[in-house]
């Protein structure tokens, strides 16, 4: 958008906006016209304003998820921000990671939408940074580049049999039920009785909950239709959530645990001896850990109340934590292609609290199962050889969001700190990076005096390669189609499942 147009739309947004928005609240009412006298004044301002806005700093954000949008939100106060996203659709893990039965967590999309529609923000989907355009080219075209592309890989368990049929990463399983295009073909086999989830964080609990939730609950969510049909036919009755350490080291949080404990149609089954010594440690724990542990102990050790006992008695599905167990092998069935069991080594703990270490005791046990989902962590991947990458920690090395080796390069979100944290954590993290960037602009460390071509140049480069970005209004076409399709089924939305479909709707 040229500087003039931007100024004009800025003015419109600011002083015109209210009448426009008022008229939108009344259905069918024709939009109010801008009064002619003021319009004349506006046009004279445009000429004067052009000079002002051509020095507006331009920043590029790579990745259209929470980190990208929170970083943009903080920057658009003073700066033009262009957000580039590989998929045609924005919002990253809010769309593809948050569980379908957690719609309130997705409310943050409204905030991101407002940011995207701000006059100083532009969204460009369907652009693969690293392939369609390099980070070096972005650095040439913008005053600063913020990498916020998150963690699309996963940590591998590193045991024999990990690649057998029936073994999936939680990232892929979650991507499958949430409609991530690359996970569309996953087609997990849910015909077995027992599923083993490796890892005891919130993602592990999400997977367990989705596997065991009553259909009545799931069918009203935005879970994809193929996943819903697969779960309707699922014969999985028992989910074991396995962790190498003990109850005091689980990485999940109380909200997710409470959801498992109260999940209709299910009952919990834990090993009381796993909780030896835990009661004594309670008093020294910080509040979040204490409340979490108390709930776990209550579930594992105490007799339930009458109503709960009734629910447990009539439950057809069961779940439980298995502590002090590390996977050492995934065992195949007779034909050698599919998982038939997981061999778990028994651990004991050395040390206590967060720093406790799991040490092999020498015993093993085999757990028969037909589905293994490893939920031991996501992992960031390097997308451009020009960007420094710490492969041991799988992050872009940085100090408070500044990539030291490259002037003008920053990072935010999981790429900056590693793949842990909820949306609120990412929010703080992104605001921090934005603050570092603003400091650098104010101090002169980042030279913003020279004009940069920004998206004008990048779009020209993309056009040469035949890449057509999806702008935010194109996404809105996809969004409203998904919502309309969902309405027909009593769901908040029915997601489009392939990039081709998304692009077809975007271009229509």
């Amino acid at each position, binding site marked *: 958008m040229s500087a003039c147009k931007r100024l004009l739309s800025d*003015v419109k947004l600011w002083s015109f906006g209210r009448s426009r928005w008022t008229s939108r609240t009344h259905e069918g009412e024709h939009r109010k016209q801008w009064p002619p006298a003021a319009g004349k004044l506006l046009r004279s301002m445009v000429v004067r304003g052009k000079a002002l806005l051509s020095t507006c700093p331009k920043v590029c954000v790579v990745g259209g998820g929470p980190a990208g949008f929170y970083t943009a939100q903080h920057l658009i106060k003073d700066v033009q921000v262009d957000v580039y996203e590989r998929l045609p659709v924005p919002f990253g893990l809010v769309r593809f990671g948050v569980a379908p039965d957690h719609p309130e967590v997705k*409310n943050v999309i409204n905030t991101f939408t407002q940011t995207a529609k701000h006059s100083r923000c532009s969204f460009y989907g369907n652009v693969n940074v690293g392939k369609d355009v390099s980070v070096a080219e972005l650095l040439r075209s913008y005053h600063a580049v913020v990498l916020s592309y998150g963690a699309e890989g996963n940590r591998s368990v590193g045991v024999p049999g990990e690649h057998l049929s029936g073994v999936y990463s939680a990232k892929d399983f979650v991507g499958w039920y949430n409609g991530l295009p690359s996970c569309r073909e996953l087609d997990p086999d849910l015909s077995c009785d027992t599923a083993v989830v490796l890892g005891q964080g919130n993602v592990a609990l999400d997977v367990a909950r989705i596997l065991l939730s009553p259909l009545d609950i799931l069918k009203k969510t935005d879970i994809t239709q193929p996943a819903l049909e697969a779960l309707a036919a699922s014969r999985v009755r028992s989910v074991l959530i396995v962790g190498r350490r003990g109850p005091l080291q689980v990485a999940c949080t109380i909200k997710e645990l409470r959801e498992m404990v109260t999940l209709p149609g299910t009952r919990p089954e834990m090993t009381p001896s796993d909780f030896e010594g835990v009661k004594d440690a309670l008093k020294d724990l910080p509040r979040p850990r204490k409340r979490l542990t108390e709930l776990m102990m209550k579930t594992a050790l105490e007799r339930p109340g009458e109503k709960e006992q009734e629910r447990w008695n009539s439950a057809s599905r069961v779940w439980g934590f298995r502590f002090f167990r590390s996977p050492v092998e995934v065992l195949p069935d007779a034909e050698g292609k599919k998982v038939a069991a997981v061999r778990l080594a028994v651990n004991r703990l050395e040390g206590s609290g967060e720093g406790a270490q799991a040490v092999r005791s020498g015993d093993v046990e085999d757990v028969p199962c037909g589905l293994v989902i490893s939920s031991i962590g996501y992992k960031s991947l390097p997308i451009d050889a020009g960007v420094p990458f710490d492969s041991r920690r799988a992050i872009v090395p940085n100090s408070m969001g500044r990539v030291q080796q490259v002037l003008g390069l920053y990072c935010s979100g999981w790429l900056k700190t590693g793949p842990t944290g909820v949306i609120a954590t990412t929010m703080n993290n992104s605001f921090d990076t934005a603050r570092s960037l603003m400091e650098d602009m104010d101090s002169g460390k980042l030279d913003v005096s020279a004009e940069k071509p920004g998206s004008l140049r990048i779009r020209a480069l993309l056009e040469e390669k035949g890449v057509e970005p999806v702008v935010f209004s194109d996404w809105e076409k996809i969004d409203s189609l998904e919502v309309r399709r969902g309405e027909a089924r009593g769901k908040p939305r029915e997601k489009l499942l392939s990039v081709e479909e998304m692009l077809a709707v975007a271009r229509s």
Partner: protein
Amino acid sequence: MAASAAVRTSMGLTLRLSRLIPDCSTCPFYRLKSCGNSSASLQRRGSFDSFRTTNRHLQTTIGLCREEDSSTAEDPEEVVNVVYIDRSGRRIPVKAKVGDNVLYLAHKHGIPLEGACEASLACSTCHVYVSDAHFDKLPEPEEREDDMLDMAPMLQETSRLGCQIVLTPELDGIELTLPKITRNFYVDGHVPKPH
């Protein structure tokens, strides 16, 4: 400068048009702090700066505006004086009224208190510290609020979620501090958060 005159004129037009607005819930200006109550101050300033950076603290969380919400109460018994203390330590006094929600009140006054989940107890971004004198006057948090508070960084004894605090007369003088986003977030031995 002609430009600022134009701005003032256009603001005047907008203000007149604004009297027709029936409710603020879909208006981004309610969130951008340019809505009815505070646009008067923007008009007085009239400088080009106020035009370029409409709102230094761009508040982009959508808040649902309650119909009776108004930051100017008529009845003195309805007035609740609130002080927000932002992350830089700046004190922002606000005249609120009984029944106001602390999160949406903050939005109305351009205080950068996020409300990512829009008051549905699914996040902890509206985390505030309540002044000691008033903390005990608040009703006990429900279990779901405690669960979400557990996720908030730098939890303190007087931590509450802003979206769950509704003003009553006995909360007059309450001070709400926004937790600092420390640079040493992960350096103080803090355990990496689950996700």
